[in-house]
């Protein structure tokens, strides 16, 4: 029997048959194998699938992951043929329970044999007298691995039948089912879900299903599309914008071009490789495109495109009157836009020019100036450019104030641009070091914030100390939050020794700030008021416990009053390994504070995401009632907190979602970004949600642009939680 690779089948799941972690690796699992014999008869064989050593992912400290086939129902597994065959043999996909590796094995047969190990049910029968040789694992396109994780070549394995076996090998092509028996026998330690994963899953009842998807749609063709900006017009219609190099997927809508159009063919795709040597294609012809959707996301009403290759979209925001303010950075065909939008106000950048000249002279090279940026206003009917301002030699960011004044940042310089007229006035020059958040403008009045960290060089923990500073619109400091130092927080009397930092700040019209902080522990100054260390902040919320983590990196969400810096709520959101009751990580990719104080988050969770019982896809807590092998989940997710960050209104996987950001209006929440056709996390292949969709099918490429409209105040629609059936 020739084997190119070993094929490992492990029972997985919930009431798993394996102990993992902490080095206690079982040597076998009970199975019943069903196959179609060469005479056409269906045969069954009970026995033990025995391993010398599991093909595992070795994690830190010698803990083992488990590779497994995810059982579909009732412990039975259907062999899936995926991908391409290799030299005629079928290919099987296995994932370990942490999802960090996907192993593709080419197998020919499941060996059936015997070995005298004294195991119950073992009989020496036909088959191998000696274990097959150790075979190398043939990894195909290995996924990125966790730090410290390595893959080992699998050891030998065989099916040891309880009775004499008529065969010594079962061709894999003939396999129909492998039934993993739930009973644990000698030598096994039954593993079950326990600890905080179960506790929080039980407690996370959600909000009676009131947070409901209204519509979800792809938009895209063969390429990789993505919406980088989105929002609501005052009349409720929706806009979404991004860079597109091909709009042939559009049906029934012809784009309207602003500026003088160019030929996309003049800017052909550029083929190259990334640093890993993988092929990469860039599209210089890409142009900013703005899509306008109906209020319910059911139709594309308008498409506005800028000339091909004219610029890189930087921002789109909507004004009080429905006008759109658009910012972009110069590209090859910039003049086809900048030279055809009427009168353009130019804001020079003498500082940059002087520096560039100095550099050119010092290096005896040609003068090189950075690209310009353009900010313009698209009239409320989206047909005309009302005004345009050209900022020379730098990119810009801007915030629209409630008054429709735009606060524009170009490096350290601030400019005020009046929305209706385009009048430009210079603002303060703001210098601030080591700010992770950058300058965040309060849309109420134009005051601004910087959040970040500094290093307390006093030899005392914490080393990384967070700060958040507020300045008035003219650049005068107003208050400083946190900004303690090691000598004050790290000594005997407070011992708030965890390194912490403010990574991001959101300011909105409500007068609340939403901070995203980071810390490496629970003894963080974030657990106190930012102005008085004696006063605790309200820290809590579902899935916020961090004890038991060995290496910790935790995101904090903090809600704060923008005027008084009073913190109204602090939370952390973690996942939990369901079998070892240890915190697992979550990375927050996007977050948004609605005007009513609710906070939406999107991120990627490691295995063990806490889903509310009313999540949009049956969570583990519901599935488990009828399927003892139901698995916990991870991957992309969406969650919504009530004001104060203590109550989780919904937490749900968001299958296929890649990059997502938010916009909100009243009770509506818009998730915009991009998505793959299905989930690809921890064995879960749930298709991406489409609902009342403009485009329900995935268009191709690696991702399509994606929109999801959510009603956060729907009528109650509580989940149907079945009685436990086993």
């Amino acid at each position: 029997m020739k084997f190119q690779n070993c094929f490992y089948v492990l029972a997985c799941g919930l009431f798993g048959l394996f102990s993992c972690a902490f080095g206690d690796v079982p040597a076998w699992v009970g199975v019943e194998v069903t196959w179609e014999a060469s005479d056409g008869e269906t045969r069954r064989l009970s026995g033990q699938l025995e391993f010398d050593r599991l093909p595992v992912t070795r994690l830190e400290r010698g803990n083992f992951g488990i590779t497994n086939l995810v059982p579909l129902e009732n412990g039975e597994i259907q062999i899936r043929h995926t991908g391409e065959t290799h030299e005629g043999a079928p290919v099987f996909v296995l994932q370990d329970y942490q999802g960090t590796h996907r192993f593709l094995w080419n197998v020919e047969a499941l060996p059936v044999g015997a070995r005298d190990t004294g195991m119950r049910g073992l009989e020496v029968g036909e088959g191998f007298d000696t274990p097959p040789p150790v075979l190398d694992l043939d990894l195909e396109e290995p996924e990125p691995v966790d730090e410290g994780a390595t893959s080992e070549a699998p050891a030998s394995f065989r099916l040891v039948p309880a009775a004499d076996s008529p065969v010594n090998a079962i061709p894999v092509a003939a396999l129909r089912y492998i039934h993993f028996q739930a009973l644990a026998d000698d030598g096994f330690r039954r593993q079950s879900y326990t600890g905080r994963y179960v506790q929080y899953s039980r407690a996370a009842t959600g909000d009676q299903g009131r947070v409901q998807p209204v519509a979800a749609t792809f938009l895209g063709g063969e390429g990789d599309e993505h919406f980088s900006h989105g929002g609501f017009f005052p009349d409720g219609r929706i806009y979404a914008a991004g860079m597109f190099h091909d709009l042939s997927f559009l049906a029934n809508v012809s784009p309207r071009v602003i500026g003088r159009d160019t030929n996309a063919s003049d800017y052909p795709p550029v083929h190259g490789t990334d640093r890993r040597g993988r092929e990469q294609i860039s599209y210089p012809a890409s142009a900013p495109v703005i899509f306008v959707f109906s209020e319910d996301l059911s139709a594309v009403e308008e498409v506005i495109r800028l000339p091909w290759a004219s610029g890189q979209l930087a921002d789109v925001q909507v004004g009080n009157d429905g006008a759109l303010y658009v910012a972009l950075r110069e590209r090859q065909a910039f003049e086809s836009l900048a030279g055809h939008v009427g009168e353009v106000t130019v804001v020079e950048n003498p500082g940059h020019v002087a520096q560039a000249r100095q550099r050119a002279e010092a290096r005896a090279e040609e003068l090189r100036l950075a690209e310009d940026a353009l900010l313009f206003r698209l009239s409320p009917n989206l047909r005309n450019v009302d005004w345009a301002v050209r900022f020379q030699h730098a990119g810009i960011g801007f915030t629209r104030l409630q008054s429709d004044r735009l606060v524009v940042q170009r490096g350290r310089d601030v400019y005020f641009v009046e929305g209706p007229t385009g009048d430009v006035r210079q603002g303060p020059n703001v210098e601030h070091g080591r700010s992770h958040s950058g300058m965040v403008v309060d849309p109420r009045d134009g005051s601004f914030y910087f959040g970040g960290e500094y290093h307390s060089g006093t030899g005392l923990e914490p080393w990384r100390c967070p700060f958040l500073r507020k300045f008035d619109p003219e650049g005068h400091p107003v208050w400083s939050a946190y900004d303690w130092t090691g000598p004050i927080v790290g000594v005997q009397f407070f011992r708030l020794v965890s390194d912490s930092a403010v990574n991001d700040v959101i300011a909105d019209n409500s007068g609340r700030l939403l901070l995203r902080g980071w810390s490496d522990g629970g003894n963080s100054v974030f657990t106190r008021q930012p102005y008085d260390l004696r006063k605790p902040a309200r820290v809590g919320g579902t899935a916020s416990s961090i004890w038991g983590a060995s290496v910790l990196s935790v995101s904090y969400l903090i809600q704060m009053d923008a005027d008084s810096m009073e913190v109204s709520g602090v939370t952390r959101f973690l996942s939990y390994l369901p079998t070892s009751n240890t915190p697992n990580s979550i990375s927050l990719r996007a977050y948004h504070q609605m005007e009513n104080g609710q906070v939406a988050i999107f991120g990627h969770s490691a295995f063990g995401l806490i889903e509310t019982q009313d999540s949009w896809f049956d969570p583990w807590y519901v599935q488990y009632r009828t399927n003892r092998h139901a698995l916990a989940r991870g991957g992309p997710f969406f969650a919504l907190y009530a004001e104060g960050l203590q109550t989780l209104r919904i937490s749900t996987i968001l299958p296929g979602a890649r990059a997502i950001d938010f916009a909100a209006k009243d009770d509506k929440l818009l998730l915009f970004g991009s998505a793959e056709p299905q989930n690809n996390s921890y064995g879960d292949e749930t298709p991406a949600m489409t609902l009342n969709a403009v485009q329900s099918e995935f268009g191709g490429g690696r991702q399509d642009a994606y929109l999801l409209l959510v009603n956060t105040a729907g009528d109650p629609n509580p989940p149907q939680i079945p009685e436990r059936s086993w």
Partner: protein
Amino acid sequence: MKIKIFFLLALPCLVHAQDALNQHQRVITAASGVYDMSKEPRRYPFLLILDQEALKYPSFWAGGHAGGEITFSPETDLLTGDLELNAEGGFSLQVTNSTRKHGMEAQIPGGPWMQNTRDRNFRVTFDSFSDYTVGEVRRGNDGNVIEILAKAKGKVEVDGKEAPMEAKVRFLFQERTPNFTMHANFEFEGALLGLDGKQAGPIKATLSTLSPLGEMLPPKAGNDPSDPFGDLGF
């Protein structure tokens, strides 16, 4: 005969004294010592928090010991049964670090002192202690902790200016190791230290500091302090 009568008359006093001594022995053992505060090895053993009614936000400061030696030689008054802490000496604490509350100089007590704190000779000095009472005895991580309440007099200095203060003090003596933690609450006038406006009024201070390890008291000549009869010359 006269001696016998004297003995009989003195006996109740002696019994009373013995009882008091038994109660105070733990305190005496724990609190006795000579503490050279300049020997504190930790860089920031001292925390100061200032609150002011006219201002919304407090201010936080840290620092070290600026010298001074304090001796505790507690003993029991055999006639009254009271414990006398017999604290002699005093010490100073120097503020060296402030928080970095940019823009809030006028919004926190002592806000202007955040600039160049180290150069301002910002000190809190405890000159004398009195009015001692024994508080609670609590179990701590390293044995029992004995609380002694007292009053103190001293001053606050900044930029060459002084403001007197009287403090309520709480000493926490470790029973097993010769050191103490001191917490003090006092008030002083901001105006006396050059503050004006809303910062000029009374400032409430909460102070905490740690002592270095103390040294044993030198023995008194000829007498065993635990001998109730020693002072009587028996």
